């Protein structure tokens, strides 16, 4: 005879009628709190090109790059290009940014099959701007 404490029986009955603790991902996801360190939001028009974000990044994931030919007139300096493959989402770039151009959002769905999307260009895509 297995020596089982009887205290588990109410728990067993309760579990029969309780909802599972997990959610049916990807149809639903648990809410993400404010202040989460997820995908970056960057506003090139507010950026002062101070390079502090690139200098503070512990993983050297930020590189200051020049604008492509067509945009060089509008954006004459260098701007941060973020390599999400190197980023550890520490948020130091957000804390150090004096103009609030760079911030971390609640975006967590970052997995990709396309390697080129890992490099986040600071400039608006062609045709926009």
């Amino acid at each position: 005879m297995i020596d089982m404490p009887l205290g588990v029986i109410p728990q067993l009955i309760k579990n029969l009628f309780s909802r599972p603790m997990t959610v049916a991902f990807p149809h639903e996801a648990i809410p993400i709190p404010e202040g989460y360190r997820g995908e970056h939001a960057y506003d090139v028009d507010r950026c002062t090109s101070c390079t502090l974000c690139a200098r503070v990044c512990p993983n050297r994931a930020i590189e200051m790059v020049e604008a492509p030919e067509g945009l060089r007139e509008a954006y004459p300096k260098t701007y941060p290009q973020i390599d999400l493959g190197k980023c550890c989402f520490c948020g130091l770039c957000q804390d150090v940014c004096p103009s609030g151009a760079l911030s971390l959002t609640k975006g967590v769905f970052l997995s990709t099959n396309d390697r080129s999307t890992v490099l986040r260009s600071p400039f608006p895509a062609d045709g926009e701007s």
Partner: protein
Amino acid sequence: MSEATGTEMMAKGSRVTDGFDLYFGPVHPGSGNFGVKLTVEGERIVAARSDPGYLHRGFEKLMEYRTPIQNAVLSDRLCILESLNWNLVHAEAVDRLCGTEVPERAQCIRVIMAEFSRIQSHIIWYGVLSKGLGFDTGFKVAFGYRDYVLDLFEFVTGGRVYPAGYICPGGVRRDFPEGTRRRIEDLLVTMEKMTRGFEAYDSNTIAARCRGIGVLALDDALRLGATGPVLRACGLAADVRRDAPYEIYGELDFEVPVREEGDAFARSIIRKREIEESIKIIRQALARLPAETLPPVKPKVAGKIPEGEVYVRNEIARGEAAVYMRSTGEAEPYRCKIRGPDLLHMIPVLEHLLVGAEVADVPAIYWSLNICPADMDR
């Protein structure tokens, strides 16, 4: 020692198990990038050789090329299972070198977060020990409860497992968000419920598999360099939080749990008492949390660390952790030596305990030591 390796013997179709090399890890689901080679004669282990190094990432060298705030982020990874405690050791070393006065509110927040880190690390310990013993219910219950703590970490630090140097030189990276106090109080009630729930498991399954197994005598523990719960389970009340208090620990009232047996059961049961003491500490720190808000710590890009050297030790969940930091007045430390508790637990202590044990008792001995290869290999 064996004349032929286990693989060679199996290839020959040999049924002789004397001098057989049995590899436990490094790809075992619970061993975590760490292996131990056991030489067995039948069921009896005659020699054990730890095989570390699979998780070496070279933190000590990396830290020589980074500023303190960047190193605070790196210090998360020293032990994935208790990042905030490692954050605290590193931050204290830099604070002491720079002579920074940390505001009392930041000190209270540091203690609260470090103790939660200890609690969730002990929950993982319980979970992997249960898993190692084949007791899946304990594993699932433990990891379920751990998620409640991770929810708090996510709310406060912005990340579930990696707080990204939340405890950083100068204080904490940001103040508690609104509503944290209520969440902490609720979480402590949940944790108390959890420790009561573990009692039934401890007195049945865990006791049946662990009692009298892997007995570590106190003089052996001291000789081999055991610290933390492993040492306390052998009967010595050694705890840096009480013996050499840091932050606000000196002003808090808590006990250092001790067991006399020194076996795997004592090591695993002491965890529950430590969680209870951590709950007590968090309640006291929360009660004395000053009301004023803290400004966020602005990362310094060009600051210099004053010349000097410090050795800072803290009590983390696994034992005594320390950082020796030397600065020559540059922006980066000249040397940052990290002393993790697990190197000694996983090499001399583990090898000592395994020799003479039965193969079936290896999981109980192995996971009762609360291992973390990340902290050992660094």
